[in-house]
């Protein structure tokens, strides 16, 4: 939804990045009509780089390969990424992009990191739960982006996490404060 708080967060992120002199390109998954589900063909050819028939996926892959950092802006649902963003990880960050796969003569597959060009991972998100409840029930989205993803990036890749917790109880002031915080943090990256 273009009127959502997440879109306001996107704008704050973009303002901050521009202020800090960073060049960026934006991928808006919903606006682009991205399909979250991995297709049968894609999974059959999963280990062959560049095998996707989807032009959108191939366009995103080209963008990711140019990037020296990635910023994810999304609402946390069920302690995880919305399906559409999870689908982005699965369909776009595959073989030849996030990792390289080699198959040994005995059929064993070995995976090597392939996003050494990514030196910064940033997550900007909102939670319905409070901070301690999120900690208690485990923040799956953060673990996917900051841990699983981090295994494939540059060895010295830095991570930045910005979350607005307890959004249901938030006030206009708390949201405004968070937007300012996001913009300032992005400008300082």
């Amino acid at each position, binding site marked *: 939804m273009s009127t959502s708080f997440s879109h306001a967060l996107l704008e704050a992120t973009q303002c901050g990045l521009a202020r800090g002199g960073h060049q960026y390109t934006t991928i808006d998954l919903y606006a682009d009509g991205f399909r979250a589900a991995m297709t049968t063909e894609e999974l059959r050819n999963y280990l062959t780089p560049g095998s996707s028939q989807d032009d959108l996926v191939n366009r995103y892959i080209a963008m990711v390969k140019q990037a020296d950092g990635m910023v994810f802006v999304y609402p946390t649902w069920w*302690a995880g990424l919305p399906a559409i963003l999870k689908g982005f990880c699965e369909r776009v960050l595959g073989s030849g992009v996030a990792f390289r796969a080699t198959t040994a003569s005995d059929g064993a597959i070995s995976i090597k990191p392939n996003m050494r060009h990514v030196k910064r991972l940033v997550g900007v998100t909102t939670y319905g739960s409070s901070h301690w409840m999120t900690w208690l029930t485990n923040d799956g989205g953060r673990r996917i982006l900051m*841990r*699983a*993803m981090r295994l494939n990036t540059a060895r010295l890749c830095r991570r930045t996490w910005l979350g607005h917790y307890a959004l*249901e109880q938030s006030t206009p002031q708390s949201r405004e404060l968070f937007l300012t915080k996001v913009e300032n943090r992005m400008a300082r990256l």
Partner: protein
Amino acid sequence: MVICHPIHDSFTRACADRATAALKAAGHAVDVIDLYGDGFSPELTENERQVHHEGLELKPSIAGHAAKLQWANRLVLVYPTWWGAQPAMLKGWFDRVWTTGVAYELPEGKSQIRGLLRNITSITAITSHGASKFVNMLEGEPGKRMLSRQIRPMCSWRCRFRWVPMYGVDGASEAGRQAFLARIGTAMARR
């Protein structure tokens, strides 16, 4: 039972078949939701987001799935683990179907949600991981924890959570796979 795999003759499918057979042999009625087979659409739509906090009566698009959830007393999920968690297709099923009025309600003036699926007394996750157990530990097992810590509290107070994982499936031998299928049979025989 919810099955999530895009390839029809996959190992995940073999796991689901084994689980179904074991449940039927024990005299249970099994209702299968095959997300890929049914052509489920995992993206929460703008309209669904707008009525997210409303009751089930405003959500005709998920009424069928909601009825199945309200009928079941056991939930079995069969899926491959990708990026440490459920595939987008299955995550989308939780995003879209497990909403206010189905999985939980937010009582007036309260800040904590309350589970509604008290009929479900057992959740079993049967999943294969390409990576080893060690790599999954480093990643923090987000898929496992979502089910045990977020989804289970929406179910019965005494709901059990059974984790039936096969790590390192990429390099697994045929014997390893057969052993895992046998393990599924055992897991299904328990509540």
